[in-house]
């Protein structure tokens, strides 16, 4: 079974630029999550999708972050414009039941 795929793996941008991350969850997993993990900390949930609907986006900075999950499969997370404090690893996870989560390798973002 293929795991959760993410791209790119690394991204370096300058502040005020925009960036997008892509996630392909495990086939058949209805729930998809985006997390932000700052160095030395645990993952923080940004947004949760159930199929293509948003379940929880309470911690998503909506003035600069946006996410979508078209057709209930792939998802993209966008930051526009980026700030220095957005430097982090962005993790995508999926789950068939909403319990155990399966994580992708993450995208490491550095904002200069």
């Amino acid at each position: 079974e293929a795991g959760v795929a993410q791209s790119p793996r690394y991204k370096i941008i300058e502040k005020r630029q925009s960036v997008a991350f892509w996630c392909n969850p495990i086939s058949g997993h209805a729930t998809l999550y985006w997390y932000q993990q700052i160095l030395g900390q645990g993952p923080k949930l940004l947004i949760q999708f159930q199929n293509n609907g948003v379940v929880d986006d309470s911690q998503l900075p909506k003035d600069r972050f946006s996410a979508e999950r078209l057709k209930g499969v792939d998802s993209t997370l966008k930051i526009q414009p980026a700030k220095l404090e957005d430097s982090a690893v962005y993790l995508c996870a999926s789950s068939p039941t909403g319990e155990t989560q399966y994580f992708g390798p993450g995208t490491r973002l550095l904002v200069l």
Partner: protein
Amino acid sequence: SQQGEEDPQALSIQEGENATMNCSYKTSINNLQWYRQNSGRGLVHLILIRSNEREKHSGRLRVTLDTSKKSSSLLITASRAADTASYFCALSTQGAQKLVFGQGTRLTINP
């Protein structure tokens, strides 16, 4: 806060020794999960223990849960160099299909 707090923040032991990590929390939970993260990688699910369970085993892993004390522990027996990683507890609260992660314990196994 719904976040679990792991203790210790960092642990360094010799290969072959046992490693114990603890997680304390303040809210009521549906289940508690432990995940491992190797440097530069995504998280890997290790074990899930439900609120009505007290102990679970998986290979060299043993997890306990004490809901009266709102705490859990993860024991790794006969540690190996490959166990070097960060370990996170994650809380699932009633009615929510999401996890709240703690800050993690950084475990180093010295050969």
